C-alpha cells in the first residue's frame, strides 16, 4: 500500500501544485478529477479488493436493460 502512495502521491500532488502555481485552475480541476479516479482504482487494487471493470460495465448494462424492458 505504502508503495502506491509513495509513487503516485508525489506524481499527483506535485503536478497539481505546479498547475496551481501557474494559476491554471481549470487544468488543476480536470487533472485532479482524472488522476484521482486513477488513484482510487489503484488503491482498490492495492488493498486487495479490485473493482473489476468489465463486471461493472456488465452490471450497468443489465440495469439499463431491465430499466428499459421493465
Amino acid at each position, binding site marked *: 500500500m505504502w508503495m502506491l502512495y509513495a509513487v503516485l502521491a508525489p506524481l*499527483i500532488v506535485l503536478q497539481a501544485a505546479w498547475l496551481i502555481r501557474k494559476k491554471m485552475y481549470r487544468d488543476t480541476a480536470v*487533472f485532479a478529477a482524472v488522476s484521482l479516479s486513477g488513484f482510487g482504482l*489503484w488503491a482498490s*487494487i492495492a488493498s486487495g479488493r479490485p473493482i*473489476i471493470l468489465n463486471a461493472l460495465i*456488465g452490471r450497468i448494462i443489465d440495469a439499463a436493460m431491465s430499466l428499459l424492458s421493465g
Partner: protein
Amino acid sequence: MISRAQFYLLTVNFTLGTTLFVTINEIIQRGKRDAWMMPLWAGAYGMLAALLWILLLRSSPGKSPVQIAREAWGPAGVIVGILYLLWFCMIGAWALRNVSDFMNVTIMPRTPPSMFHVMFLLVAGYTVVQGTETIGRLNGIVTPFLVFPFWTILMLATVDWDWERLLPAFQNPWEIFRFTSLMGFPFMETFALMMLYPKVRSGAAGALLLGLASAAMSISLVVFMVTGLLGPERAGRILYPIYTVVQEVELGDVIVNIHSVLIVILITLIFIKLLVLLYAAFETIHQLFRPASRWPHLEALSILLSAAAVVIYENPIQNRVLNGAITIAYDVFHTILIPALMLLSLRLRRALQSRPRRR
C-alpha cells in the same frame, strides 16, 4: 492536419490492432472452416456503421463527435463527452491488458503486466503530446515495417499448407450472425478514429471506408491462412494461433524460431491502436474543458489507464465469457445509438431553426 493516406493507414492499423491475436482463436472456433468469411461480414457491418458516422461528422464539418455533442445538446453534451472519455479509456485499457496477457503467456512470463502498461503509456503519451501530424507520420513510417515482415513470414509458413484442412467448404457461410459479439469487435471501436476525422485535410470519408474494407480483408486472409496452416481443430483451441503458426516455421535448418519477429510486429500494431485511443481521450478532455496545459492530463490519463488495465478483467476466461454478453451492447450504445441520436437532434434543431427564417 493529416493526409487522407495517413488516415487510411491509421484506420487499417487501428482495426487490425488487437484483432490479430485476440479474436482469431474464437473466430475459428465458431466458424470452423468457413471462419474466414466472418470478418468480411463484420467488416461490411462496420462500413455501414461508418456511413452513419460520416453523416454525423459531415453535418458539422470540422468538429469532432465530442464537439458535436456540445453543439447538439448544449451542457448535456458534456455528459456525453465524459461517457466517450470513459469509453476510450476502457478500450485503451482492454488493448493494454491484451498486450500484457499475450506477452506473459508467450515469451515473457515473469515480467509484471504493469511494466508493459506503463511503458506503452509513456511512449504513447509522448507521441500524443507532439500533435496529430506526428501520429499520422509515425504510423506512415512504421507501416511498411509491419506489413512486409508479417506477410513474408506467413508466406514462409505456407510450406505446410494443406487444402484438405479447408474442405468441405461453404458449409455455413452465415455463421457469424449467430455470434453477434464478433461483429462489434473490432469494427465498432473504429469510432475512436472519428476524433481524428476533422483533422484530415480532405477525403477522410473515402479513406475511412477503404481502410475498414482493407482491414476486413486482411483479417479474413489471416484467418484463412491460419485455418489452412493449422487446421480448424487446432486453431480453434490454441489461444494465439498466429504465434503457433510462426513458431512452427522452419525453412531448412537455418530459419527457425523466428517468432520474435512476429511479436515485435504485434506490439507495434497494438501501440498504434493505443496511440489513437489515447489521442482520442486526450482530445476529448481538451475539447470538453479546454485546459491550457498538455502533459499533466496525459499523466493523469496514464495513471487512470494503467490502473484500468490491471482491473479491466479478472482473467482471460472471465473476459471471454463476459465479452459475449457486454461488448455488443456497450459498443452499440456509444457508436450507433448516441451518434444516431446526435444526428437526429442536430437535424431537428437545424430544421426548427431554419423554419422561422423562412417566414
